[in-house]
């Protein structure tokens, strides 16, 4: 059986001192997924790390949602390229 860990969006917003509209905007752009149970919103704990990154970008660096979306996409590409470089480096070691 798979156990899911969900965090209430209301509680998260209170703890992080942020507006619920911000979470809603991230959800609308597809940057985070929200689970709705009996009209209450929840976030999977696996998304918390990324969500906190978005909060820092938005509130501390003044980057808007469109900017966060772009950064998120580029960081995914950077990570994929990083993995590819590692795999290629390992391949090159065959010839060292």
């Amino acid at each position: 059986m798979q156990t899911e860990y969900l965090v209430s969006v209301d509680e998260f917003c209170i703890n992080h001192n942020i507006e619920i509209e911000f979470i809603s905007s991230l959800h609308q752009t597809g940057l985070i997924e929200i689970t709705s149970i009996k009209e209450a919103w929840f976030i999977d704990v696996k998304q918390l790390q990324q969500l906190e990154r978005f909060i820092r970008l938005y509130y501390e660096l003044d980057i808007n949602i469109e900017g966060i979306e772009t950064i998120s996409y580029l960081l995914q590409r950077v990570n994929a390229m990083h993995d590819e470089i590692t795999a290629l480096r390992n391949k090159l070691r065959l010839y060292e």
Partner: protein
Amino acid sequence: MEFVDYYKILGIDKTATQKDVKNAYRKFARKYHPDLNPNDKDAKANFQQINEANEVLSDPEKRKKYDQYGKDWQHADEFEKSRQYQSQSTGSHGSGFSGARSGEDFSDFFESMFGRGAAGSGSRQAKFRGEDFNAELHLDLLDAYKTQKQTLTVNGRKIRITIPAGIDNGQTIKIPGHGGSGISGGPNGDLYITFSIANHPIFKRLGNNLFASVNIDLYTAVLGGEITLDTLDGKVKLKVAPETQNGSKIKLKGKGFPVYKKEGQFGDLQISYNITIPRNLTDKQKELFTELSKL
């Protein structure tokens, strides 16, 4: 300990207004923020510097003290009174980042001048998980072949970790909760360990497969025979087929590297034959080779 020029770090002059400080800080923070520069140590160091500069220059009291005593920071006695005053005033004026708030992120110069714990706690008082730590662990191929336990010291804390057999060069594993301490009651960050596995003189690895070259003499290559081969799993006996060609390859199934986190599963070992030609032939040998060549 050297004097740190916070104005220079933020690229502003002494007449800069609070707005100038904030703008300069934002500009550099967007460039060097760890969230935008994952695994970049230089960016992290730069970010800590600008964070520290902002901590001082965005706080009128700290800035005043810095401007007054900055270059004469070694006159600790003169600062003592103001330091005591500082420790009593708990309000923060900083608008810096939560990601670099722990005391060890500030320079000795800063701590000497303003004392430990003088860093602000952020304007939003939010709970944040602690900073993620990155570490690199060097292993040799034999270490990575078997599951093993190792004790690491990260930021003064000892952590016992299990490294599963089959870990790959450049692979990163996450140790949850062993990063920096959480901010304002937030959870701890995670520790990421990236493995650097040194090349082995005989076995080359690609994924779960191993590759090696084996020398066989001309006579065994021509007539066939049996050789004993070292693998990471011990010695194996191998039959060499007659008329084996130089560079020909054979695959030993299941004699490669263990598959990561899949117990009992192994890759293959590919052997490439390198046929050695005899040297310093005797007259008799030369005679026989000549005779052979005429057949």
